[in-house]
């Protein structure tokens, strides 16, 4: 079964059709997805800005990370669940949407960025914890994260448009 066939099958399931045609459920799921942006991305941005030495520089980086991360994780879970539901409601069109593919690619890159950060410069955080301007590798991770997430938001917004859709 190809991915497209899987999406076609998914789109024909009862749940998918029900969510797609619902009057309230779909807009509510979409609203939760958009507004959780404040919780998930908002706090991620604040942490990235701390890594860049641009915000809350008087607070140790570990404190910003430690206190915000639990909330960020909650936000991320809500984002993934509501995002999956939005895909589930309109699978074929979304799969063929170029912006959706860009968004997924950026999401993966963003995950890679976090993984690299955690395995490298984050390990020595105790040495630069209170630095107002963290070392270059930390600033790089924060900057890349901001750029990727901005791309994810813009691409996500653009999924509503099918300007460059692949032909099914």
């Amino acid at each position, binding site marked *: 079964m190809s991915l497209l066939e899987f999406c076609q099958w998914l789109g024909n399931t009862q749940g998918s059709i029900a969510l797609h045609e619902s009057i309230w459920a779909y*807009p509510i799921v*979409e*609203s939760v997805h*958009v*507004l959780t*942006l*404040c*919780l998930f*991305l*908002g*706090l*991620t*941005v*604040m942490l990235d*800005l701390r890594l860049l030495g641009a*915000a*809350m*520089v*008087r*607070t140790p980086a570990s*404190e*910003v990370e430690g*206190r*915000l991360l639990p*909330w960020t994780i909650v936000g991320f879970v809500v984002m993934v669940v509501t995002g999956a539901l939005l895909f589930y409601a309109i699978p074929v069109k979304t799969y063929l949407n170029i912006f959706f593919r860009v968004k997924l690619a950026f999401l993966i890159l963003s995950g890679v960025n976090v993984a690299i950060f955690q395995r490298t410069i984050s390990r020595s955080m105790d040495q630069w914890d209170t630095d107002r301007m963290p070392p270059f590798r930390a600033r790089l991770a924060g900057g890349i994260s901001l750029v990727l*997430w*901005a791309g994810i*938001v*813009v691409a996500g*917004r*653009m999924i*509503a*448009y099918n*300007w460059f859709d692949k032909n099914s």
Partner: protein
Amino acid sequence: MPVLSFFTWCENTSLGEAIRASRWLFPAIESVHLLALAVIGGAVLVMNLRLLGFGMKRQPVAQLWRDTWPWMVGSLAVMLISGMLLFTSEAIKLYYHEAFWVKMSSLLLAMIFTFTVMRKVALADPARVGPVWGRAAALISLLLWSTVGVCGRWIGFS
């Protein structure tokens, strides 16, 4: 009806016409609006979580207020400018949309509350103003800003 005629004038400005005529201007401005939403959401949440006792508890409230302040005001400015641009492109539709009026009312209240009560509570001497006031202010702030956000999203469904 002076308000409606003002809205009609806004919609008929060349700016409003240009945004309507363009295929990508509206989504582009909306993307900026969303990006600023993330930043203002982050700044407001960092502050409110701290006041509720969940956030960076080791940092003094006043210090956190001063450190998040530029990001809050900066992103608010971007939100207001991008929001006005979006407004000019569909002012008449918005005039008849309840969610728009609820959003604008709660936005006004949220800004007044943030720049007066919140500011006072955040910068107050912790020895004089107990944490209960901080928690109450944070709850009101979250309620007001959430209403702005929910109504903003709801404007899109029509």
